[in-house]
């Protein structure tokens, strides 16, 4: 009897030991959510704080309401369009520019001051200017997403091209490859992991652009929804928006990380981490 109980304890202990990382990590997040949920039941919040307080259950309820009443769909759609078009433009412009800057010394030297300056400055500073130029419609947001996502992509592509093995380039050259062929055969495949890493950073900047762009002078979108809800003290709606952004960001980052791992699987380990 006793030995069986001890045996169970042992299996429990070994179960815990094997999965300690997941149990502690997941448990902590669950615990925080639980505490968040039961705080108002345990202590009566002063009115000033109660106004800003919501619970996870309330957030889920209001998310359900928003979906059922068909209110959130158009916001999500607008934000998604801004994100996809802006990021797409950044890829279309950033990759070729990064490739060219990496291959041409002169262009590199001439564009470098601008790239450094714009990369060090958060591009959000241009938001009032873009709203002034493009109005409060969808294009000012697309442009803020574009300038936000452009530089991580450009710089990472550039780094990738710069880190290409000189020997490989020289071999291909010796066999008479043109600049275009060198690009296609050696440079581009070698910079793919860097480009994907840049994409991961660019996704973060693009989401930042969507959120903040929609805070100011927008009429639709998740950021607009958050800002409007905050002004009306609908804290649960704020958290619905924040949670969607968090979920999207985590999902996209995870996807790109998987892609990164997959693309660099064939190369030796030391190169894998950069």
């Amino acid at each position, binding site marked *: 009897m006793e030995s069986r109980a001890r045996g169970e304890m042992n299996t429990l202990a070994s179960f815990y030991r094997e999965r*300690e*990382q997941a149990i*502690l*990590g*997941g*448990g*902590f*997040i669950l615990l*925080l959510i639980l505490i968040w949920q039961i705080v108002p039941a345990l202590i009566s919040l002063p009115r000033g704080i109660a106004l*800003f307080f919501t619970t996870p259950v309330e957030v889920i309820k209001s998310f359900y309401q928003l979906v059922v009443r068909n209110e959130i769909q158009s916001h999500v759609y607008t934000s998604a369009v801004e994100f996809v078009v802006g990021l797409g433009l950044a890829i279309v412009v950033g990759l070729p520019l990064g490739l060219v800057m990496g291959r041409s*010394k*002169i262009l*590199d*030297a*001439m*564009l*470098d*001051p*601008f790239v*450094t*300056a*714009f990369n*060090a*400055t*958060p591009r*959000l*500073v*241009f*938001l*009032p*200017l873009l*709203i*002034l*130029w493009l109005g409060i419609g969808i294009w000012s947001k697309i442009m803020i997403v574009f300038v936000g996502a452009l530089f991580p992509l450009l710089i990472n592509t550039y780094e990738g091209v710069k880190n290409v093995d000189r020997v490989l380039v020289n071999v291909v050259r010796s066999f008479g490859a043109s600049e275009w062929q060198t690009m296609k055969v050696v440079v581009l495949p070698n910079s793919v992991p860097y480009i994907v890493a840049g994409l*991961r*950073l660019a996704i*973060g900047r693009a*989401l*930042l652009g969507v*959120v*903040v762009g929609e*805070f*100011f002078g927008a009429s639709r979108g998740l*950021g607009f929804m*958050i*800002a409007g*809800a*905050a*002004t009306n*003290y609908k*804290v649960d709606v*704020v958290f619905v*928006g*924040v949670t969607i*952004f*968090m979920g999207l*960001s*985590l999902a996209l*980052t995870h996807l790109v990380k998987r892609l990164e791992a997959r693309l660099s699987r064939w190369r030796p380990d030391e190169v894998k981490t950069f």
Partner: protein
Amino acid sequence: MNSAERRRAMAFKRFYAEYQRLILGMVSVVGMMLLWELAFTYVIPLNPFFFTKPSLIAEAFKQQIVSGSLWHDVAISSKAFLLGFGLAVVVGIPIGVFMGWRRRAEYTLDPFLTALYASPLVALAPLLIIIFGVGLTGKVALIFLLSVFPFIFNVFAGVKCTDRLLVNVVRSFGGREKDIYFKVILPSIMPYIVAGARIAIGRGIVGILVTEFYAASEGIGFAISRFGDTYRLPDMFAAIMVLMIVAVGLTEGLRKLETLVAPWKVGQEAR
């Protein structure tokens, strides 16, 4: 061509080869400014409500300096930045050390903090402003929230890379836990802290801009958005350029410091 001339040409060529990057960079910046100025002076009619040119920006810049409004706005924003950033340092470094030194602390905190670091926390800005008000506190709260994570994760990575041998030496010579923290861990995470600070600066400036665009009555972000609303484009560009200069100065300064304290590459890039 006589020999003196040839020698001068050679010297010039060598000079150019040595400083090629610098020369080309300066040429392109100056050329861009000239092109911008000339195009809107002689070719394209300037619509002052839509665009501006360098000479007007310089004029606006001079006026803002003379009137002192620029200093005032920069000082207001800097104060919020320093407080939020300082708080991020004070809170972020201990958390990072704790996570790096205690395995269970890492297991417990890492998923939660990684999720926060990877998500656009700036979405909380309207809520923070409504809770803490449009003044200093709201700004400091957002700046702190955005810039604390680079410190946590860089310090975390730094502690993980601490030389075990040094720790063992301190232990063997009878050093206590305190000695390990202050004599081994702290010095070896310094480069990581600098790398974290470089990443955190950009995020902190985002915090300033968002809170001041959203709701503020003073500060550099407020100035930029007010100049935009009132179509004072030269003033707006002047303010944007001031912010750019500050951002580039801080980032490049820290990059230099990074290569100074640790010539090898350390730290994690932003996620």
